[in-house]
């Protein structure tokens, strides 16, 4: 076997019928030296996929194989919905894409909450009063639960007192002072990673 591998490669490739036996290792070693033409031809022999297009039935005719890349779409490819109405690409794409409404959309990450719009101005005044009288008792979360709205709405409506802010800041400092270096670094790294999301890195 050793002398087979050490033998000059090109004549063996050129004359494959001279090979003494279909030895597996030799075949493997020879496959590395295939000519690029053969390699390319072999790579092109892929199994037809459903995404290749509708021309599967007429394989005898010339047709275009549409093989979409298996990668995330580029941001320079404007979504069809974002194309202005005057753009020619919009009509082209709408014409080519089949209407596949029947295909179910993927599941949502989180069901969008139904907005109720049930709070009246008097409720809002009540929220403000409660938050001003006892900020420790009536936190944002508690108010949201009590009035069945989102905490963001509470923050839009009113602001907490500076004393509460100061207390919260002290509490946070007290908690963070107990962190060791590992946890602190991990938190900082997490924040850095979060900042990188916005830069799309």
């Amino acid at each position, binding site marked *: 076997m050793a002398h087979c591998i050490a033998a000059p490669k090109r004549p063996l490739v050129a004359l494959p019928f001279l090979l003494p036996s279909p030895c597996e290792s030799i075949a493997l070693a020879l496959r590395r030296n295939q000519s690029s033409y053969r390699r390319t031809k072999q790579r092109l022999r892929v199994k037809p996929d459903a995404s290749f297009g509708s021309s599967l039935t007429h394989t005898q005719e010339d047709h275009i194989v549409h093989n979409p890349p298996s990668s995330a779409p580029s941001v320079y490819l404007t979504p069809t919905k974002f*194309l202005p109405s005057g753009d020619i690409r919009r009509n082209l794409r709408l014409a080519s894409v089949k209407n596949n409404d029947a295909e179910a959309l993927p599941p949502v990450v989180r069901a969008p909450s139904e907005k109720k719009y049930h709070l009246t101005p008097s409720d809002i005044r009540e929220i403000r009063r409660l938050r001003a009288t006892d900020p420790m008792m009536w936190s944002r979360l508690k108010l949201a639960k009590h009035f069945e709205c989102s905490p963001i709405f509470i923050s839009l409506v009113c602001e907490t007192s500076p004393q509460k802010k100061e207390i919260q800041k002290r509490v946070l400092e007290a908690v963070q002072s107990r962190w060791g270096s590992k946890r602190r670094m991990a938190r900082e790294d997490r924040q850095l990673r979060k900042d990188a*999301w*916005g830069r*799309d890195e």
Partner: protein
Amino acid sequence: MKRLQLQRWSGSVLSAQARTGGRLQQRLYTAIRHQSTASPAAPAGHDQLIREQPQAPSIRPSRPSQSRYNLPSPPVEAARESAKLASLHARLYLPSRLPLETLARSLVDASADPDPNFNNESLATLGHDLLTQYTSEYLVCTYPRLPLTVVFAAMYAYVGPKTLAAMAKEWGVESVAAPGGEVDPGYLQFRRLPPGAEVNPELITGTERPHEEETHWRKSVTSRVVYDNEYGDPVKAGVPPSELPEREAKNNNLGVSHEQASSTFVHALMGAVYLHAGRPAAKRFFEQHFLSRHLNISDLFNFSSPARDLARLCARENFDAPVARIISETGRKSRSPVFVVGIYSGADKLGEGAGASLLEARFRACVASLKGWYLYSPLNVRVPSSMEEEGAAPWKPVHVDLGEVII
């Protein structure tokens, strides 16, 4: 030709007696004056212009080479002897109508030679305006929805001082140790900063912005268009011409940084190409050396709350509210999960992103969707300055829509 008309205008209207215009006009005037005096190789088409000029000051009398040490910058006749200058001219494919004397002049910074007849300040003013005009019209027409902050960043990336300094370095322009009359005119001449000098002063004062002393006030993006320069940086207020000499005298004692001198040179070269070879050559020069640089605009965005922006955008454009959907996922309960989340508006996918958590994937998908909106580029883009060419097709208005999402 329009170029000639411009020169005629500046030559006849702005005479030396009635020079009360702004700084730009004054510099234009000096640039023309130079062209008429210090370019003996100018083509015959300029003869008429030269005759139209008001009494032009004579160039410096030629002196023996010993007294070149007394000159602040190399004399005009030295430009013909410099092999460095000739090779730079050929290396940049500059038009042959641009004489070596003007190229030599564009290499003399105002800090080396305070005389406006011999430094590149006037050329640089013209070139700066041309560069910013060409770049901004390219950006705005190619990416009509680009947010203004990103336009500022793209302008900085294309024609900012750092880029221009790098460009001068890539052109093989070396700089002198100290300016003087004996140096080869092929070097970039400027007075260097003293060692230890502050290169970037943090706060620029004396801008035209009202209430500039209130540093904590919010500066809107729209106000930056009005008060700031093309990169969104605060810019110093202009000086009336009456106070010009003493201020220049004050500035000349200080040096300039290499970056600043290099960018001034590139500006001046652009202005020189425009003045001598006309608008088409200037545009060609711009396309060959500036627009050919590689810049990925999608890397210039930095979003802080893309989900909110996208929701506002869909509401503004009367699309269905965006919904995040999980396209695929793997290893949800493992240490390194991957989620691929798509943002859908109705049945249409706006963008998708992958992340190690659902939050990250959603964030990234929102960023991708917003970039898909902002990076829209119409087909067959034409810029307004293409109408200046002979026999241009009738102008069709470029695409303009609401563009940026304002929260």
